[in-house]
């Protein structure tokens, strides 16, 4: 089993263990998302066409993350920006799937727009916490989750970009490079999600001691 898949399962188990301590509550949505991811990556892509499965799964993933960032970023203007970005991403994804490509081809272009949106939202969260006079990031699960998104989508954007270049696939060992980069992105992502979930638990314990 690949390392990234093991970390993915560890992240899910961590999520289950700390489920009751997850604050803010909207982060609990990560647990069903992780469950769906595990199901997709360990079963569905083996049984069905991988691109078809990932195309559908990516729409769910997109919806969840847009919702989570809508809850994380509370400023009105940013929320409007999230709604606009979500509309553009979903529209472009459906156009790409229905007209430009097909359900059995990976929708790299619309996914790059989604990558950029998430990078932007994560950066906006960093900006928000950087503006504060005091903010302890070690007890802020949202920081770790935003970091996970920032790093994962940055590398995924790079991967999606090289994936779209025909010359890249003609290069020797192209597939190995792609797989290694993607695995690295996954490892970083699930590792930071794990930290975020553990921080939730740690924070709730601290609050219990406080009161």
């Amino acid at each position: 089993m690949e390392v990234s898949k093991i970390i993915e399962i560890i992240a899910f188990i961590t999520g289950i263990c700390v489920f009751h301590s997850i604050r803010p509550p909207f982060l609990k949505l990560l647990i069903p998302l992780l469950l769906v991811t595990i199901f997709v990556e360990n079963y569905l892509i083996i049984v069905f066409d991988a691109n078809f499965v990932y195309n559908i799964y990516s729409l769910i993933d997109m919806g969840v993350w847009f919702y989570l960032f809508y809850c994380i970023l509370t400023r009105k203007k940013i929320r409007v920006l999230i709604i606009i970005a979500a509309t553009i991403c979903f529209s472009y994804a459906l156009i790409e799937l229905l007209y430009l490509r097909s359900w059995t081809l990976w929708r790299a272009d619309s996914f790059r727009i989604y990558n950029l949106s998430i990078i932007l939202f994560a950066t906006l969260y960093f900006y928000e916490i950087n503006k504060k006079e005091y903010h302890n990031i070690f007890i802020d699960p949202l920081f770790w989750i935003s970091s996970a998104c920032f790093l994962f989508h940055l590398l995924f954007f790079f991967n999606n970009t090289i994936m779209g270049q025909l010359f890249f696939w003609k290069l020797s060992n192209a597939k190995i490079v792609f797989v290694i980069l993607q695995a690295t992105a996954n490892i970083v992502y699930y590792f930071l999600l794990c930290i975020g979930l553990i921080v939730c638990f740690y924070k709730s314990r601290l609050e219990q001691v406080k009161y």
Partner: protein
Amino acid sequence: MFLQVQTGTGQILTSVVAAAGFLLIIIATLSVGQFIVNRQKRNKLYLQQEAMKVNFEKQLLQSRVEVQEATLHTLSMELHDNINQLLSSANYLLRSGFRELEVVPSNLIEAGETIVKASSAIRTLSRSLNKEWLEKFDIIEKLEGEIDRMNRFGKIKFHLSGIDQVNLSNEKQLLLFRIIQEAIQNCTKHSKAANIFISLLKEDHNLIITIADDGIGIGPKLQKDGMGMMNMRQRTQLMGGSIEWNAKAKGCEVRLVLPENQ
């Protein structure tokens, strides 16, 4: 030959793409790391500034309290050494005048008695304002004396209940005494109460002090922070405690929570 060159270039390009990918993740990770380090540095600086601010405010409050105590001490000395002496002189002159009269009018006798009472009241008041005198006694004893004095001279009935010993330093006892004095003064001035209840209780290493009255309660004007209330709050903060004013069905209540000496 051509094929060999193409394969060599391809491997170099693959390596470049891989290196670019890893460089990207390294730079991004380092950026996040740098963000964490900077944020922690700013947090540390902020905490240091806050600690300095708290320390400065504490010193400022301490100085204010010391100045107030010095003023009260001077006032106490002035009451005892000047006004009390004047009253004694007035009483002496009155008594001298009595000897020259064959029949002393009853109102003059009453005036003499009033002067004696005033002198006694001033002496007691002078003592209550005197810091040195207060430091020799504990707050309970002091409060009992103060309540006894006020019950003798005032219309309002004062009631003291609760513990008979408090675990606070002399300095804190003095501060607490001044807070209670201020609260009592507020009650007598504004509440139109018939009774004032003062209680001191212990609760989990905390001292709970309540000063309640059965008067007209807190009006909207009185809820605003006046000088007296601000002084009470600052003195309580100086002792690391908290103070609140609560409206009751009849009257109002000042509630203080102070951490006892461990």
